[in-house]
């Protein structure tokens, strides 16, 4: 007799909404009349992310007591729920940013189908409770993202970005899979809880597998030295895709890293805290130093995302409940800031018809005051300035690290922040300190009409970035509730 698992459809609802929409979008892209395709597809994708967002919020609300469900394949708890809320929110903003992009008509439906598929994969990924579903989720969103990176084959570098991401990503996935195999070999179980319960602690196979799992996930987090694909792919991919990747993928990878390390490998804590601290320091050093020399803004932001991966890995390395809380909190303004920053870059890119560099960003702040001020806020947020959520994010991460007794990591973090001021402020400076008129940077074919969708997206990011500073208490409470799902 076969045991039929009890399926908790409600717990799966965010995933199902997105994957259903993905199938629908695939049909729209071939069945709907050409002219209606773009608005129809964008509307469906937006509605799907909105539905997923609502479901995820409801799920978070109704999952106070965490449990592994559907034959122990996925977790239903607030850690998963809050991450799903974030990912769905990122997807929603990504749809808003995407709308004004000049997609080739025959691919616009597929674009949204893949975006929702990637969203579905990520939403599933963060709920994984065993190594099998973990890998399934990882491949699910990765494959969708490989294609998304290469979707605009007329864009210089897009195809190259997709190919590079595919090849390196395959190595990363293989590493994770190999690690999973070794862990399974050492413990004989796949579920995170069962791995922790196993008595095979400290065996060579287990720690070897752990190292590979860490590397596979650090690859998706784009932490140094596994970050090398990041600048090329972020720069080459269409900007809305980059925005989604920078925000949502980071949420997924970090949330899952924290989950698997804390849940499955508590006995190896002495190893992975140090490993993550090392990786985090490497990310901060590499990300910040390399960003100094960049002129291309997307590439600069890519390195900034590497250094932010370092900051957020600090929170996991602290291995305490304050760390988990600060990770969840920090992700909220971080997502808003990176989505918003890439959205502003996308706006300038569409206006110029050329890649955005520090030089041709000149005067943008005066031409488009709203976007200029928004970018200013996002940069200050990355810097951890008060009046933005980035400030509390850094404070909380530092206090988690301090609680772990690693005051020297705080020193590293503060120095890194100081260095990062140079390039974040360089963006602000080039936007505001120079006039576009005297530089004769005329937009191609006149200024394009102001994009309402993109402006709404930027405004939403702005509200979250600043709002998370003022509404820090409810957000930190939510993060606290989420972190209770992890067994510290």
């Amino acid at each position, binding site marked *: 007799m076969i045991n039929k698992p009890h399926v908790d459809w409600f717990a799966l609802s965010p995933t199902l909404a997105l994957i259903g929409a993905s199938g629908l979008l695939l049909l729209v892209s071939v069945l709907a009349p050409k002219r209606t395709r773009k608005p129809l597809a964008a509307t469906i994708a937006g509605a799907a992310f909105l539905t997923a967002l609502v479901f995820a919020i409801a799920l978070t609300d109704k999952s106070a007591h965490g449990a592994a469900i559907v034959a122990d394949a996925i977790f239903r708890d607030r850690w998963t729920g809050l991450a799903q809320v974030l990912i769905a929110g990122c997807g929603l903003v990504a749809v808003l940013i995407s709308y004004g992009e000049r997609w080739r008509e025959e691919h616009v439906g597929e674009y949204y189908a893949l975006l929702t598929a990637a969203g579905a994969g990520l939403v599933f990924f963060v709920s994984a409770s065993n190594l099998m579903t973990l890998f399934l989720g990882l491949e699910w969103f990765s494959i969708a993202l490989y294609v998304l990176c290469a979707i605009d084959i007329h864009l210089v570098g897009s195809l190259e970005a997709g*190919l*590079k991401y595919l*090849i*390196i990503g395959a*190595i*990363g996935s293989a*590493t994770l899979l190999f690690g999973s195999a070794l862990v399974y070999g050492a413990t004989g179980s796949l579920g995170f809880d069962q791995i922790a319960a196993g008595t095979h602690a*400290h065996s*060579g196979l287990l*720690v*070897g597998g*752990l*190292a*590979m799992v*860490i*590397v596979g996930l650090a*690859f998706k987090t784009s932490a140094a*030295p*596994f970050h*090398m*694909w990041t*600048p*090329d792919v972020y720069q080459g991919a269409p900007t809305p895709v980059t925005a989604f990747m920078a925000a949502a993928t980071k949420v997924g990878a970090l949330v899952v890293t924290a989950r698997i390390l804390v849940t499955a490998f508590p006995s*190896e804590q002495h*190893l992975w805290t*140090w*490993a993550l601290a090392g990786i985090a320091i490497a990310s901060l050093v*590499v990300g910040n*130093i*390399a960003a*100094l*020399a960049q002129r291309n803004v997307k590439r600069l932001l890519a390195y900034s995302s590497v250094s932010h991966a370092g900051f957020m890995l600090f929170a996991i390395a602290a291995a305490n409940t304050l760390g988990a809380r600060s990770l969840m909190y920090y992700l909220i303004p971080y997502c808003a800031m990176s989505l918003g920053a890439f959205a502003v870059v996308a706006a300038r890119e569409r206006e110029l018809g050329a890649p955005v560099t520090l030089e041709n960003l000149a005067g943008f702040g005066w031409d488009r005051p709203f976007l200029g001020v928004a970018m200013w806020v996002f940069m200050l947020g990355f810097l951890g300035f008060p009046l933005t959520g980035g400030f509390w994010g850094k404070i909380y991460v530092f206090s988690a690290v301090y609680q772990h007794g690693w005051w020297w990591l705080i020193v590293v973090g503060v120095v890194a922040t100081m*260095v990062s001021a140079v390039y974040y402020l360089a963006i602000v400076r080039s936007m505001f300190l120079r006039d576009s008129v005297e530089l004769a940077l005329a937009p191609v074919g006149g200024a394009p009409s102001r994009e309402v969708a993109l402006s709404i997206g930027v405004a939403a990011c702005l509200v979250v970035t600043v709002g998370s500073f*003022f509404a*820090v*208490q409810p957000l930190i409470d939510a993060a606290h509730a989420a972190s209770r799902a992890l067994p510290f």
Partner: protein
Amino acid sequence: MNTAAWVTLLAPLASAVAITLTGNLLSRRQAGFLATGAALVAFGAAITAFVTMVGKDAEERIAQTTSWTWLSAGSFHVNLTLLTDQLSIMMMLIITGVGSLIVAYSVGYIDGDDEERRFFAYMSLFLFSMLLLVQGGDLLLLLAGWGMVGLSSYLLIGYHQHRAAAVAAAKKAFVMNAFGDAAMAMSLFLLVQHTGRLDYAGVFENAPGGGALATVIALGLLGGALAKSAQIPLHTWLPDAMEGPTPVSALIHAATMVTAGVYLIVRCHPLFENAKAVENLAAGLGAVTLVMAGLIALVQTDIKRVIAYSTMSQIGYMFVGAAAGSYVNGMFHLMTHAFFKALLFLAAGIIIHALHDEQDIRKMGGLGKKLPHTRTVFLIGSLALVGVPPFSGFFSKDAIIASTLDRGTFGLFLFGACLIGAFLTGVYTFRLYFIVFHGEQSAFAKEHLHEPHGRLEGPLSMVWPVTILGVLAAVGGLVQFAPVWHPLTRWLEPIAPSFAEATNTQEFIASAGTVALGLLGIYVAWTMFGAKTRPVPQPVAAFEAKFWWDELYDAIFYRPAVAASALLRRLVEVPLVFGSINELTRGFRIGSVELARVQNGLVRSYAFALTTGLAVLTVIFLVTK
């Protein structure tokens, strides 16, 4: 009631934001009306709050509303809390009442200026900051308001940004206030650290009851109060601040901001009572200031500077009152002073306006006939300032002077200083009055007197506020007459119970002395400047040089600082810092270039980095596990 308090606080902020955001959509005049309207709304709300409060029992009058908890960790909460009690409502009424009159006056005064909108945005911002200072329910909001009034005062003093003197004055005010802010912030941090609380009640309850810590805390608070209220030794910014537009001088440097120090002492009186020495120091400094400022005012030739020194002198009285333990009288004088000093400034503004922006009183003379209305209100203001009964200054000032008699030997010193001050006030105030209004019109006045708005004394928007203030300056003091009725004392008793109370005999002695000396001062001024029967003595060099305070600061702070920084630059900065920054940037550049070399775009090298990292991590794990 709490809604009313919120409206009071937020109406000026809304106006500032609206004027800033609408930009050119709003005409300059509309901006002025918007700011005035917002100030009036705030005043109306403050009255509503006041009336509601009067209807309650004394015990129920203190109301704290927390709209929102920002952060809470254990017992430590950071809230947005408004405190509405008898003290703050009195300040709210003064700020919004006098404030709305002054903003209304500005509509006429500043008319035609290119940057009117900016002016009204700043004015609204100032009102908001000042209200935040007095309405904030905890130390954090107090500090925020304290800093923000400093900022808006800086913006308003430097409003004429094309005038070098205005910019320098703004900078001076900012630096001096920053010094005070730092001192105050330090003591607030000490308090928070010691008590673990932010709200006033909690802090006062758990504050150190004595010893060195209590003294340091009180000293820090005193530093903040001295800087904001322009008391010796942090007073030199106030006369320079007269570079700002006249309504600004009236609002900030007479009626509201400069009295914040007095408010602070009254609000935090438990902390000062824990450190008696500091309290006596505050009273002593107030006494020294009131005499010294009176002496300097004798020889000033700029109409606004005379009034500015008189302000310093009057705030000296308030310090004496508040720090000598007579909180009610300090606050009482704060109120009447707001009326008559705003009146004097605004009247001076009318004169300056009528004379083509001329402020030198030596060029004025005999303006009384041409400006009869201004002359009347100026006279009322002057009599109130000198403390001639029944004008408002008499009631408040005499009460302060009388209460010093309750403080023993130290009180006698204060009493003496106050009497000297009363005489000086009579002389300098009426020197100004006689020079400006009495006698024949001067040649300059004949030539330059013009009618800027069709009326010599300005448009109605300028005349009405001055008239209302004139009425208030005349009768405002009748609120309390210590020997007979004292509603104000009863009102403030629950917040700040005074510990220096004068007996009726002492009241009588003080009143008789003060009024006699004040009238003597007026007589002296009359003989020299009115009837001119006696020659004007040669001005004393020390008065003219303002007792060399600026030179002193120049010698002990500015010049050593410049010398030290030059030395540091030569010995440290050039060889070490510049050198190391060059080295550092060179290092970073090399690092960047090297990293860029690794980042060569080849998939195989990326894969190599990935697998190398993996190998290193695996080996480390296996070795150290």
